[in-house]
């Protein structure tokens, strides 16, 4: 059933919802939460599909907020979908002009009583989520740094402003990797002397993975650039050799533990609907993400601190990669294997915020590797 309401307001939307549910024959509902999805016109379609399919697992009232502040006229249009293959209710709220500046006034009357409110920004999101009018309505706030123009810069910003109930889908994407790594360490409970993450250059998830490992293991974790897709490998070095999980094709990984044969394990990159469904399973704070986010901030600061005094003239403690990265900042050709294209392409425009360009950072041997990627990221992400 689809009901369209032009130039309307919240109370008319609410009564239309009740009426629609009555006529569908199920006045009581098993909806467990209100999910607010905040998009601009472009990301709307994909986000709507992902949210709808997640609502099969988590029946909810889905409020899709599409706002455009650019138009002069102010107004609210609503579109109600009910009983179309998903258990909950969907309301598309198109806000124009002045209304779009006061979205909370529209949303507050439409939240389900008592049950949790989740807000999800599939693309660009406000800097401080909990101070945002929509974010303030929600107990859970989900963002996606990978959905923005500059994933690493966004992720660092997210981490710096991390608040309770907030997670980022970059973190969700890591779950299968983290599960396998934890299982590998269950199998081989050794002490580790080093750890490294290999990923496509400019991959925000790799930074987060490195931060998590650094937080858990107390080691400086390197990030090395590869061709991708996504994260292509994680290595934990022990005295007897590496525990390694490598994945070149985004589907099937090779798993190796010292003293044991190499084995294959399926490790697919997951779709957004699976990610969002995983997010909606937890309504409480994700302390582990919080800790990883704090480490991410420390790593980024360390990177900036190391990069700013000695631009182009790296101390001898820094590794070769670090030297390269600083060289490339000045336009020198990138020589790292497998990264030539992105490096060359990224070298020129250099338009991204200073924060990220500075993050290539290295301090001491451990962080050396991360420099290459972080620096690169800010430039490659928009172009790829």
């Amino acid at each position: 059933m689809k009901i369209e309401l032009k130039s309307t307001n919240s109370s008319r939307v609410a009564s239309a919802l009740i009426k629609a549910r009555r006529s569908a024959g199920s006045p009581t509902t098993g909806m467990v939460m209100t999910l607010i999805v905040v998009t601009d016109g472009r990301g709307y379609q994909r986000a709507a599909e992902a949210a709808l399919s997640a609502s099969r697992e988590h029946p909810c009232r889905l409020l899709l907020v599409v706002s455009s502040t650019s138009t002069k006229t102010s107004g609210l249009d609503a579109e109600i979908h009910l009983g179309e293959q998903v258990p909950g209710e969907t309301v598309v709220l198109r806000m124009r002009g002045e209304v779009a500046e006061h979205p909370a006034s529209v949303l507050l009357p439409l939240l389900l009583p008592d049950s949790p409110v989740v807000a999800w920004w599939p693309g660009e999101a406000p800097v401080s989520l909990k101070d945002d009018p929509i974010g303030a309505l929600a107990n859970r706030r989900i963002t996606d740094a990978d959905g923005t123009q500059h994933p690493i810069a966004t992720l660092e910003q997210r981490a710096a402003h991390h608040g309770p109930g907030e997670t980022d889908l970059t973190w969700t994407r890591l779950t299968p990797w983290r599960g396998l790594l934890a299982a590998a360490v269950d199998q081989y409970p050794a002490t580790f002397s080093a750890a490294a993450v290999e990923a496509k250059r400019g991959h925000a998830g790799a930074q987060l993975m490195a931060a998590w490992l650094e937080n858990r293991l107390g080691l400086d974790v390197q990030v090395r650039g590869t061709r991708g897709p996504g994260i292509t490998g994680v290595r934990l070095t022990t005295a007897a050799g590496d525990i390694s999980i490598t994945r070149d094709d985004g589907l099937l990984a090779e798993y190796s533990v010292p003293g044991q044969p190499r084995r294959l394990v399926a490790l697919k990159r997951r779709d957004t609907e699976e990610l969002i469904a995983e997010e909606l399973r937890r309504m409480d704070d994700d302390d582990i993400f919080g800790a990883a986010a704090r480490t991410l901030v420390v790593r980024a600061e360390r990177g900036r601190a190391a990069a700013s005094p000695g631009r182009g003239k790296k101390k001898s403690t820094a590794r070769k990669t670090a030297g390269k990265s600083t060289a490339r900042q000045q336009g020198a050709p990138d020589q790292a294997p497998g990264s030539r294209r992105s490096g060359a392409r990224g070298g020129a425009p250099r338009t991204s915020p200073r924060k990220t360009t500075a993050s290539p950072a290295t301090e001491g041997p451990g962080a050396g590797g991360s420099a290459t990627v972080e620096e690169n990221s800010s430039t490659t992400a928009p172009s790829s």
Partner: protein
Amino acid sequence: MLDPNRPNPLRDPQDRRLPRIAGPCVLVIFGVTGDLSRKKLMPAVYDLANRGLLPPGFALVGFARRDWVNEDFAQIVHDSVKEHARTPFREEVWRQLLEGIRFVPGDLNSDESFDELKRTILELDEARGTGGNHAFYLSIPPGLFDEVVGQLRRHGLAEQRGGQWNRVVIEKPFGHDLTSAQELNRIVSSVFPSQSVFRIDHYLGKETVQNMLALRFANQLFEPVWNRNYIDHVQITMAEDIGIGGRAGYYDGIGAARDVIQNHLLQLLALTAMEEPTSFDARQLRSEKQKVLAAARPPLDLAAHTARGRYDGGWAGGVKVRGYAEEEGVSPESTTETFAAVRVDIDNRRWAGVPFYLRTGKRLARRVTEVALSFRKAPHLPFTNSDTEALGSNALVMRIQPDEGITLRFGAKVPGTQMEIREVNMDFAYGGAFTESSPEAYERLILDVLLGDPPLFPQHEEVELSWRILDPVLDYWASTGDKPEKYAPGSWGPQSAADMLARDGFAWRRP
């Protein structure tokens, strides 16, 4: 350098996203050509792999009397996965599984076959790094357990060494009466310690058990009325709309009571009636279930408070179906029942005087499993009789399948100027989660076996206590020598079942 006691730095109790992935191991399935194995076990193994819950070093070994090589077996697994798996087929998951698929042709009583099995397993331990961890799934008739378990012991496949495990999985029925259950337990426990024996009742998913525990013990709302002061009787139903199909060989001589009541319905009774465990660890949960099963007893008057029936030929759900006696492979002298209903009383403070009615049957009107608590009438109704004529008693129903959820039945006023009160339903469904993404019972069961996580698997004490409740009923039925009463297919069972409740002043719910 390697210290198994060192806590894994990557794990944290707060990190509840991290899935529990089983350690490397070999799953050996005996009776791999059976229906169960093709329709349930192998697809469940694939689904686990697809969800990333199987370890990279995992191997699946089939054992059967077939002239197959590994590739033939792999093809069988492939086909059954494609047809029956819950999750979409993905080539890379299949490649992960394929690496570890082996087949051992042979007889259960042949030493050479078990030598071959042992060689295969040892080779896998090397090649797949499965590290000496083996689970043996006996998907075979209980009569053959003795043979297999003995072979496993003789070939050193049942030894428990430090850091490695050998586990055995057996399916219901766990014997056909108390004596045979004890005998079965003696056989299995002579070789495997009790924590290595996993008794699987695939009717009872772990999810269901946990839902019941959550409803009862996470809420303040229900526990105060969960006793004889407020509840006048409890009905536990498991109905199937199908007949026995081609399974006469298994079913004839077993019957509904042994097949379903002994394990499934009595487990549901235990979960409904038990006291709160001090914690949810395996031991505490089991000891509460055992306590309540020990307090439960069969009815004093077996003739009045039990009923049995068998389905006749006729029309069920718009389809013409055969009666039980005409099913292929059923012996003409058979007295096997396809419907059984029993009253069980629990002699403790919480439940004294509250009858629990258990019923199960095949070819009933629809497929449903539920536990319904029926409440006493309000002690005083400040309405005229005619106002409350249509008011029954309040009920709380735990729907178990299909459409898992909770229904609350209570009286509400019919809109209008007249004061008329009628029963209404309030439904809660566990949402799409329970149909779309939550694991099939088998996946949970297999994963728990591989993880060595036994809390919800009944141990032999529970099995024996259940037989103690059911044995007198079965003996009584056998002593009468009658054939069970016929009931129309697609109905809700024989008249004797309705009479049995009517004697106590109740009536069966229509589930």
